[in-house]
């Protein structure tokens, strides 16, 4: 007994082992099995019974099944393209024959179906199943109602709180969707779950569950439509539609979802009915005919929706045809035709049972409209975010209240707000900028997500599991894996680059070079740093993507990285001072020690910063000489162009001058200077007298000073002196002149020589006080 069973098992094992190798060797095992068959001969009746007994053992069955699952599927793996095409053509021909038969049987359709239906559902079971459907819908509805009893206030709060920021808007939409999805889930659980907790006859179960599923499916689609279109609540709408149009779109969605789900349910039920025990070829044909007709109805509904809605959109947009709207009229005219053709083609392909082709056509055809829709949604989303950022200001509040249910209405309000030159705008503008940076990022992510989804759908339609394919050791599998790796790396790099580039370009565009003669603002530093950052980032990203691509191609990049590391160390030692220059340059820039256009003093070098490179700065002396100073050499740096300078002037007047008059005159000149249109606005504090600063032997020194913006002090000083002189002269005040009184103690006239000697001696006395040096920092 044992021996025999063991032998039978061994024979079985052998058989499976022979089947196991890949199909390349199909011929060989066939020959082997044949040879074995001949050698062993026919089994006895006992053996067969024994084998059956063993096969009846569940453990053996499970083991064999597991074994079978481990085997590769030779048929699907190695079908030639030709065989594939032939099969498909054959299938299509068969389908056409079926369709023809179904068409010829069309008049008998109701009878056939009614008969099959009666065979399955006797004794009023149809009515009973309706009862079941109502009962379980009621249960699901009750559960959902219970859920809403507790969560409806939350939903109300979400819907009636106008969102102020992007984050709030996102949170609101997500929370609303989550709440509604939870309600629907409870409904599904309550209806289908309660139904399935009883035991039912198969057909009844199928019918009731598919009706319940249809209801749930329609509700889910309606929920999705409500999430996107939000027909009642403009605040939460994701597409730029106005309320009446949104309501229409939502209604059409409901109609199409209802027609589509019911058609699916009906054709599925009939197909099940026809293929069940009571089915007949006539019933199968009839089910096919019903499915084709229902499909035609659903397709017609979709096409009707496309045309009605696009006409409505065109009408809505027509008045703004001149302005740049997101939907252009020409496109609106062509697009429905294209979409109709796509839908019709898909339907015909489905009728001929070419499901892969149908999905391909649908995915490829709908990709462009879907991408555009995503783009419009992203734009709308960002627009609304910007709008709400602006609406933070109290000015916009009333405009908001007036136009809150209409995106278009809010736009003029938006325009007036933008013109408003109030200071409160600044944070809002910063917010704005952030959203502008996000916009291309969102576009990219949306596009890539859409493309990924389309690929997945296509792969599913063609019955290719991408994950399994990339794991398979064959060449195509590796190619797929490499392509996925590289695409992922490129995608991430592209996202980072897109974001960084937008951010940097935006900052750069905001920078306006100062007009000549004016000190540069703080943006000048960014103008220096940002292009540098951008280039570094670009190089780093390219290097990273390149390395990833190489590594996924199978190139071992470890030596490359190690080599680069060694090279880096070597260069680092060799170029120590270069590195020091670069690093200290970055830190000087971060410290904001100087900017392009500023007048600085470094050690004994002085001049205007003309340009900065990675390693050094270039300073032009006011007499034209250009100094190039590596950043590493900078110990300390004096900046003469920051914030303000104080200029002190002094002049000498005779002792008998009326100081009050001087003060008054200085004040008058100060007012004149401040009123000057060329440089008046550079004066921070006007010219004012500081009184007598000191007494000298022959005169008083009167000091005046003013505070001005850096760079403007020279012009102001020139005019100040000039005006002071003119004013003093007009008011009878003379500047003191150095005069030496020579007292001649004799009363006789001096001879020529004596006069010369006296003059010479007096000259010495005049020359004695040293000339004051001109201010050193004057350019």
């Amino acid at each position, binding site marked *: 007994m044992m021996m025999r069973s063991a032998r039978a098992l061994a024979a079985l094992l052998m058989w499976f082992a022979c089947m196991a190798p890949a199909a390349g060797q199909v011929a060989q095992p066939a020959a082997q099995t044949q040879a074995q068959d001949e050698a062993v001969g026919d089994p006895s009746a006992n053996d067969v019974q024994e084998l059956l007994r063993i096969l009846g053992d569940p453990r053996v069955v499970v083991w064999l099944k597991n074994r079978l699952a481990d085997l590769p599927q030779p048929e699907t793996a190695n079908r030639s393209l030709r065989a594939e095409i032939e099969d498909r053509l054959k299938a299509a021909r068969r389908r056409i024959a079926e369709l023809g038969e179904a068409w010829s049987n069309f008049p008998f359709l109701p009878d056939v179906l009614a008969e099959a239906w009666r065979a399955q559902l006797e004794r009023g079971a149809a009515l009973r199943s*309706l*009862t079941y459907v109502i009962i379980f819908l*009621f*249960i699901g509805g*009750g559960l959902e109602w219970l859920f809403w009893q507790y969560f409806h206030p939350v939903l109300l709060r979400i819907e*009636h709180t106008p969102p102020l920021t992007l984050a709030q808007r996102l949170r609101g939409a997500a929370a609303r969707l989550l709440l509604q999805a939870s309600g629907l889930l409870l409904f599904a659980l309550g209806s289908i779950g309660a139904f399935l907790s009883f035991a039912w006859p198969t057909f009844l179960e199928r019918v009731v569950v598919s009706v319940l599923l249809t209801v749930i499916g329609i509700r889910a689609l309606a929920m999705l439509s409500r999430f996107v279109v939000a027909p009642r609540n403009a605040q939460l709408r994701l597409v730029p539609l106005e309320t009446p149009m949104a309501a229409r779109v939502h209604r059409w969605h409901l109609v199409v979802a209802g027609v589509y789900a019911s058609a699916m349910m009906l054709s599925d039920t009939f197909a099940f009915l026809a293929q069940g025990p009571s089915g007949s070829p006539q019933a199968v044909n009839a089910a096919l005919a019903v499915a084709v007709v229902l499909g035609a109805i659903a397709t017609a509904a979709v096409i009707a929706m496309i045309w009605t809605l696009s006409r409505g959109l065109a009408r809505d947009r027509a008045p703004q045809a001149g302005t740049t709207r997101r939907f252009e009229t020409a496109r609106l005219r062509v697009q429905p035709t294209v979409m109709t053709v796509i839908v019709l083609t898909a339907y015909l392909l489905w009728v001929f049972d070419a499901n892969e082709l149908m999905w391909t056509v649908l995915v490829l055809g709908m990709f462009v409209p879907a991408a555009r829709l995503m783009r419009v949604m992203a734009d709308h989303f960002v627009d609304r975010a910007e709008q709400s950022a602006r609406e933070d200001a109290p000015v916009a509040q009333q405009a908001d209240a007036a136009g*809150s249910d209409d995106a278009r209405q809010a736009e003029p309000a938006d325009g007036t707000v933008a013109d408003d030159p109030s200071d409160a705008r600044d944070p809002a503008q910063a917010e704005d900028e952030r959203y502008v940076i996000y916009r291309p990022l969102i576009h990219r992510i949306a596009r890539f997500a859409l493309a990924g989804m389309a690929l997945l759908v296509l792969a599913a339609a063609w019955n290719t599991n991408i994950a399994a394919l990339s794991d398979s050791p064959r060449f195509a599998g590796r190619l797929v894996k490499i392509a996925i790796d590289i695409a992922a790396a490129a995608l991430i790099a592209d996202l980072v680059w897109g974001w960084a580039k937008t951010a940097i370009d935006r900052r750069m565009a905001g920078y306006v070079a100062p007009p000549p003669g004016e000190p540069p603002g703080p943006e000048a530093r960014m103008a220096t740093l940002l292009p540098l950052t951008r280039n570094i980032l670009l190089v780093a990203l390219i290097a990273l993507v390149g390395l990833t691509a190489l590594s996924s191609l199978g190139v071992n990049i470890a030596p490359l990285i190690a080599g680069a590391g060694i090279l880096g160390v070597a260069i680092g030692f060799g170029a120590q001072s270069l590195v020091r220059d670069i690093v200290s340059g970055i830190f000087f820039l971060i410290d904001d020690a100087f900017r392009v256009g500023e007048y600085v003093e470094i050690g004994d070098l002085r001049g205007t910063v003309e340009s900065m490179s990675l390693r050094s700065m270039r300073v032009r002396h006011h007499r034209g000489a250009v100094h190039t100073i590596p950043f590493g050499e900078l110990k300390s740096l004096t900046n003469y162009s920051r914030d303000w300078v104080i200029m002190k002037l002094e002049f000498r007047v005779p002792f008998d001058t009326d100081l009050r008059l001087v003060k008054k005159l200085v004040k008058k000149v100060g007012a004149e200077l401040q009123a000057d249109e060329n440089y008046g606005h550079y004066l921070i504090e006007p010219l004012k007298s500081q009184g007598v600063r000191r007494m000298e032997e022959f005169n008083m020194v009167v000091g005046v000073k003013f505070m001005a913006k850096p760079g403007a002090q020279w012009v102001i000083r020139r005019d100040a002196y000039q005006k002071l002189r003119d004013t003093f002269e007009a008011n009878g005040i003379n500047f003191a002149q150095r005069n030496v009184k020579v007292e001649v103690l004799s009363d006789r006239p001096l001879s020529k020589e004596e006069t010369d000697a006296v003059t010479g001696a007096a000259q010495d006395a005049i020359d004695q006080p040293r000339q004051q040096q001109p201010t050193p920092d004057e350019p």
Partner: protein
Amino acid sequence: MARRIRIISGLVLFVFVTIHLLNVALGLHSIALMDRARPVLMGLWTNPLGTTVLASSMIAHAVLGLVAIYQRNTLRLSPSDSVQLLASLAIVPLLTPHVVGTVVAARFGVVPSFALLIPYFWIDQPQEGLRQVLLLAFLWVHGCVGVYTWARIQPWWPRIGGFLYPLAVAVPVLGLLGFVEAGNQAIAYFDNPAAFPGAVPPLEAPVLTLPFDEILALLKRINWTVFILYLILLAAVFAARQFRVAGSHGRARVTLAGGPVMTGSTSLNLLEIARLNHTPMANLCRGRGRCGTCRVRVLATTEKLPERTEAEEKTLARLAAPPDVRLACQLKPPAGDMTVERVLSPFLRPRDMHDHDAEAADGPHHGEPSTA
């Protein structure tokens, strides 16, 4: 008075339905248990006193319902009101066969029991089973809306209301599941009586006063008579209402302070005008003049306003409201202009109603909505 009778009779009926459903829910165990529990649970109603109370409640509630339809100023109702009205309209035709088939048939010796009726509903006459389910759905929804409208303005509601919601779902769900399970047991039993012994208890041979077919024909006749009478009565009530409303042609213009301008026919009260103009206004008792949450302050008016109704006077007196405050659900604005302001926030919750501090703080501009 009518209000009081309506709610009391409604509560009686609601309690009856609840107990009946609990009895049906026992079908989750077995049909036999349903029948065993029947005298205990339904005994309250089968004695003469209980039957009288039940019957008078039913009649009173139906009559008051027809009166309420007559008194409706508009048929464009709020969602919950339309649900309640439609459900109540459907109840009579659905309920008649049930009552006739149990109460009236009993007079001819057909003793109603679950062992008799469950197979009848599920196997013999599946459309009757469907009718029971529809009846339950409509009845329960109507009852829940009514009881909820009454209960949520009671002082105890904020404390225990949250615990009553699950009951409102559990009772009909259990009843329906019991009905389904009992039906399944009956179907299985009659398919193969040997496999499920005792699933359907044997019936005592009924002592019929008439042949069974005649009884059925009689019951059917009664059903149809009631149905046709009901339709006639309903048509008469709607026609009378139409006649009553058709008398008024004026248009009232009501400006809400700081809000929209609403217009409506003079046959409408202020609350209905507000609803038809999509302007939210708190009305926790749904326009029955009980809660006073819809009260408005009349700021200006060109015409003389009608006097306060009795219900309005009572409610406003309870709230100690000043003379310029009126109930929107009772005040019919005359043709002309008037300006009012909401005293309470339109999004008032029941738990805020008895909280008088919140009332004072809740200005009319508290939650200005963007859309209705």
